[in-house]
């Protein structure tokens, strides 16, 4: 079983190496299949490990730490390359590998024809490896490596289409925000090592007493800083919306389902530490719920389909931190898993829409898509109901669990949470209504784009909707080449044998569009549709993982995670009656959110009053940062360059350099090239040593 656990890590790594070496040669689509196979194999290995774990008795026996070699050993620091498989990491690994496998499969279709097709899978496999390293790491250092690895992959993948200025800039932005968080992680690691003398989880938890008081609170808050960076919480959340510049599968995998939940995972992993500091917990809960609310409000106003989802993700992650903050770790994990299903599904659906719309992301230019892409619309609807919290879908139970616990702990926070739930139902319904119902608006939009000159279409008058540039083409040929690529792909799908022959009928509107000389929406190929269906089923039925009703026939996440979280039970202080009442409230809130959105948006697609620019520009957070940090930073930097660097740094460096160089020139004279003088040097050294020994004698 231990070897299966290592295989989880080894397979994506192997896939990465193979693709790195031969990816370009394997090409499209073999490289994609290789990457997918590697991740699917990893999923199988995870299942095997999971099975092995299930066969053990619940409790400590399910926690296995295994190291193969010492990674770093310096002084008192001894870091092993160790993995820790316990129910928590297993839960994470299961949905990480599972969702990753699906999204890999989806990407085969989505990335078809991209110039850097194989590179995409190289990054993706490396990402899965890093994510598993993060999840399975047996100590903070390994987790940190994974943490940095996913950050790096995220950076690469956000700026995957780096010809696009916005993509390159978004990548940098994500990089910097994450560095701020990583700084917290590093300091926390140093602090913890300083206090406990170890970095392994078991070691830290055994020496928790050393971390009581201020040190523990500081460590938690520093780790939480790291988590806010990675999981896009206040104050480090703006990068996630920009990260949507990456290809949509990346958004689905990294910026919705897996990587951004790493912060939540870290908090759960370090929960004994968290439990030691009540104030730190309150900070986490507050930041979480405020982020959830802020993210929800911003999501209500976005016009870019992916940005709505991005802010939704921020909001949902806020819920998870809320759960962590109130000590309901199981609820946090439950929501994380459920969220991975439905948010992954939403992103993939969005990707399918974007794909079908030929890289159109603006909601105002969609409408009525349900007719053209029924499967996408159907699965999207499932995810919509799930995230909105309509019973009995996964989201209802997951979000309900979080809110119940919040209600039990801090009723004030619960109020914010329930308002956010209303917002959630509202903005997702708005999204669905704008995209899939009503009259099609895309022909007009596409025509405009078709006629507009190529150079403006990519950077765009509307900054939210950058066009995708493929095959290195920019300029006027851009729009045309996307069309060409799409039709080419439609043909290839039939011939490649990966899609069933029935695929042609689904793509019928596409053909029609082509004949008209301009593109029109079409359903995506099979490789993209299958993951949608699988995820839809999961989003539908994900709630069974943790039904609030106790019973032997329900799969209980609670009891499964009990060895990890121990006495951190949830819904401990609520009576059955209040649970029922809260469930009814949740359902009512969800349904009213949907109703409001339906009423407001089915009749009209353009309602600027409902999209205040304050919210649209995400509470002016970027502007605020620019004003508070960016401008003074610029000024400081230019001052430093102009004055400090020239006068102080350069002076010091040049002075030291001159000194060293002069010393070198002087010493050089001693190196005369005469062998007898060298011998004299040796004799001199000998005399000096003998003199020292005379002193000692």
């Amino acid at each position, binding site marked *: 079983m231990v070897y299966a656990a290592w295989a989880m890590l080894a397979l994506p790594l192997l896939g990465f190496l193979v693709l790195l070496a031969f990816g370009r040669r394997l090409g499209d689509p073999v490289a994609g299949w290789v990457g997918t196979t590697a991740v699917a194999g990893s999923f199988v290995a995870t299942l095997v490990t999971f099975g092995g774990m299930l066969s053990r008795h619940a409790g400590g026996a399910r926690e296995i730490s295994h190291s193969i070699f010492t990674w770093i050993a*310096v002084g008192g620091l001894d870091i092993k390359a160790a993995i820790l498989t316990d129910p928590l990491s297993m839960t994470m690994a299961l949905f990480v590998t599972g969702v990753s496998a699906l999204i890999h499969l989806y990407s085969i279709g989505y990335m078809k024809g991209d110039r850097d097709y194989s590179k995409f899978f190289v990054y993706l496999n490396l990402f899965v490896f890093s994510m598993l390293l993060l999840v399975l790491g047996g100590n903070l250092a390994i987790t940190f490596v994974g943490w940095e690895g996913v950050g790096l992959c995220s950076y690469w993948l956000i700026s995957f289409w780096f010809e696009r200025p916005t993509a390159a800039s978004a990548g940098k932005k994500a990089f910097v925000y994450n560095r701020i968080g990583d700084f917290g992680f590093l300091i926390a690691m140093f602090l913890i090592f300083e206090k406990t003398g170890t970095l392994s989880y078991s070691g830290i938890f055994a020496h928790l007493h050393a971390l009581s008081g201020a040190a523990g609170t500081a460590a938690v808050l520093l780790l939480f800083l790291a988590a806010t960076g990675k999981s896009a919480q206040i104050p480090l959340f703006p990068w996630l919306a920009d990260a949507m510049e990456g290809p949509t599968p990346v958004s689905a995998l990294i910026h919705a389902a897996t990587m951004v939940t790493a912060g939540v995972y870290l908090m759960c992993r370090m929960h004994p530490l968290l439990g030691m500091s009540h104030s730190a917990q309150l900070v986490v809960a507050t930041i979480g719920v405020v982020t959830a609310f802020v993210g929800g409000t911003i999501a209500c106003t976005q016009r870019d389909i992916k940005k709505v989802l991005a802010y939704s993700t921020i909001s949902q992650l806020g819920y998870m931190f809320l759960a962590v903050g109130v000590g309901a770790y199981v609820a946090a994990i439950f929501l994380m898993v459920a969220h991975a299903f439905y948010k992954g599904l939403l992103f993939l659906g969005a990707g399918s829409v974007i794909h079908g719309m030929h890289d159109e992301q603006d909601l105002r230019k969609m409408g009525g898509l349900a007719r053209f892409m029924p499967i996408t619309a159907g699965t999207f609807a499932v995810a919509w109901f799930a995230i909105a919290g309509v019973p009995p879908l996964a989201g209802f139970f997951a979000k309900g669990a979080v809110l119940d616990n919040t209600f039990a702990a801090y009723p004030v926070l619960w109020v914010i949470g329930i308002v956010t739930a209303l917002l959630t139902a509202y903005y997702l319904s708005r999204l669905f209504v704008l995209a899939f119902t009503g009259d099609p608006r895309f022909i007009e939009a596409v025509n405009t784009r078709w006629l507009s000159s190529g150079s403006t279409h990519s950077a765009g008058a509307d900054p939210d909707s950058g066009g995708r540039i493929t095959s290195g083409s920019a300029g006027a040929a851009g729009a045309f080449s996307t069309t060409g690529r799409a039709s080419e792909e439609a043909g290839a799908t039939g011939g490649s044998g990966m899609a069933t022959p029935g695929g042609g009928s689904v793509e019928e509107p596409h053909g029609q569009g082509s004949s008209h000389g301009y593109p029109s929406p079409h359903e995506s190929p099979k490789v993209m549709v299958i993951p949608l269906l699988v995820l839809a089923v999961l989003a539908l039925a994900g709630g069974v993982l943790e039904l609030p009703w106790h019973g032997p026939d329900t799969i209980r996440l609670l009891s499964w995670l009990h060895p990890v979280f121990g006495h951190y039970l949830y819904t401990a202080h609520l009576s059955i009656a209040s649970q029922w009442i809260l469930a009814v409230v949740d359902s009512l809130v969800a349904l009213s959110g949907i109703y409001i959105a339906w009423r407001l948006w089915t009749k009209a697609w353009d309602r600027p009053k409902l999209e205040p620019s304050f919210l649209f520009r995400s509470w002016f957070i970027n502007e605020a940062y620019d004003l508070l940090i960016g401008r003074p930073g610029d000024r400081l930097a230019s001052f430093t360059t102009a004055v400090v660097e020239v006068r102080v740094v350069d002076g010091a460096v040049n002075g030291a*350099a*001159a000194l060293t160089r002069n010393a070198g020139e002087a010493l050089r004279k001693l190196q005369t*090239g005469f062998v007898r003088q060298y011998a004299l040097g040796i004799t001199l050294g000998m005399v000096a040593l003998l003199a020292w020994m005379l002193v000692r004698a």
Partner: protein
Amino acid sequence: MMAGTLLATLTIPHLDYTAVLPEIILVGGALFIMLVTSLSRKSMGTVSSMGWTVVAACVALGFSIYQWVGVTAHGGHSAYVAFGGSIAVDGFSSMVAVIVSSSVVVAALMEEGWLRRQGRVSPEMHMLTLVSAAGAMLMAAANDLIVVFLGLEIMSIGLYVLAAYDYRRKESGEAALKYLILGGFSSAIFLYGIALTYGATGTTNLAGIASYLSRNILLHDGLLLAGMALLLVGLCFKVAAAPFHLWAPDVYQGSPSPATGYMAAVAKIGGFAALLRIFVSALGSYRADWQPAIWVIAAVTLVVGAVMALVQTDVKRMLAYSSINHAGFILLGVAAASTAGVSASLYYLFVYSFMVMGSFAVVSVVGGSSDDAHSLASYRGLHRRSPWLAWTLTLMLIAQAGIPFTTGFMAKLEVLTASIGAHVTWLAVVAMVTAAVAAFFYLRVVLLMFSTAPASGGVAPMEAIPAVVGAMSSAGTFPGKASYEDGGPSEVGEYLRVADTPADYPVEGVAYDIGAGYRYDQRKGAEGEDGGDGGEELVLHGGEMDGDRDSGGEAIYIAPSVGVAMAICACFTVFFGIIPGPLTTMAHAATMLIR
């Protein structure tokens, strides 16, 4: 009757040849090549002799690992002495055997490329390599000063001849003669040290010395102290520690490039192994006497190596001084005289041997067919002529500079930790300062390689470092910088701006692209005229090179074997840079297993 008595009383010790099997394999390999060469009518080409050398070294490596596994199997209880106590088979000796035999593999591959280019298909270079490697191994395994001396001589004689291998070239001859005379001188001093130690302790056996010193307190230990001083001279000479280092730059510069690489690796391994074995293990109880001496030697070595390397214009010479600087670092571990120190030194030796041989593998290719294009000017624009060479050398140099995620980082970190752990913080500070200085001259070469400027421009080493980093990153490290970025991120504030508005700020100050390096050059060149003498020293002229060698334009042919050697070194450096644990664990275990 007499003979009968003699035979009866002569109990030949159990001849455990497995104890010295790695050495036997190496010498046997040399003899085998000799035999095949002299028996076959046709001459053995370099390829086949290289092949046999690699095979012999690999077998020796395999057996060393086998020995290592055997010795470490039962918590170190399997370590033993053989041949009447004159040799120790323990973790230390097996680890050094592993290091040495893997060095031989790389050295043989390097030498093959050089020999072919020289048109010299003789196998002697490989044989010399094999036998001298056996000498280095013997030094590490020796449990008797006489054996140390013999090992040292076997190794040194081989290295003298390797230095002289290209004796038609004046530099090679000069290098060999300098090495020979100074080596003989230091060997004689070393031998005298053995004699005095023998007089003071009554034995040349290291275990015997240790047990004698543990059983007796010498009231007047002058003789032993004098012996220690002289032993230290001899070994410090071999490892090129100041002020016994004077030979090193000349010999490194003059010797054939692959021989230099091998010499830099194996002489240090042998010398340090003997140093550790004799001083830390046998004379450990006298550390209060020798430790301060080594501190001073280490400090001087560090400073001299770094400072002198800075003013060199010949790459081989620069690498020689850098190896002196490295010797100072390894001495840090020796001076710590602790478990951590010894294991740090061992680890350093292991990774250093690959770093330095990788560097010299590149140097031997760039050196051209006459092996004398070693001026910094020859490295200008190497990236364009041969990106593989440039990247390999860059890797080796940044590893030597101790940049993280290379083996060099961990090596430096370990010795510094050991030094601080031994409460010699001042020495660690000195080492760090010299490491910073060293980073400049390493990066200067990197800058040159990635520079596109014509060969007549000058180079300002310090000021152009940002340009190096920029050149490296723009050459493909990060997507998003390669083609799009022309300004580069200069301020943090820029990152924090809204992504929707692309960076449109004018770039001030340092420009981060390759061209910036050249602009700097020009500016510096202009300033250098009225400025100090340092600038003009570093202005390089392509004109000093011969006409038939041309630094611009044409690609460089890398012999497959040299390519393999470079690949081995590069992979080793990167792999164990990312995952240093196995090696540090090995070094630690080896340290615990010194008998």
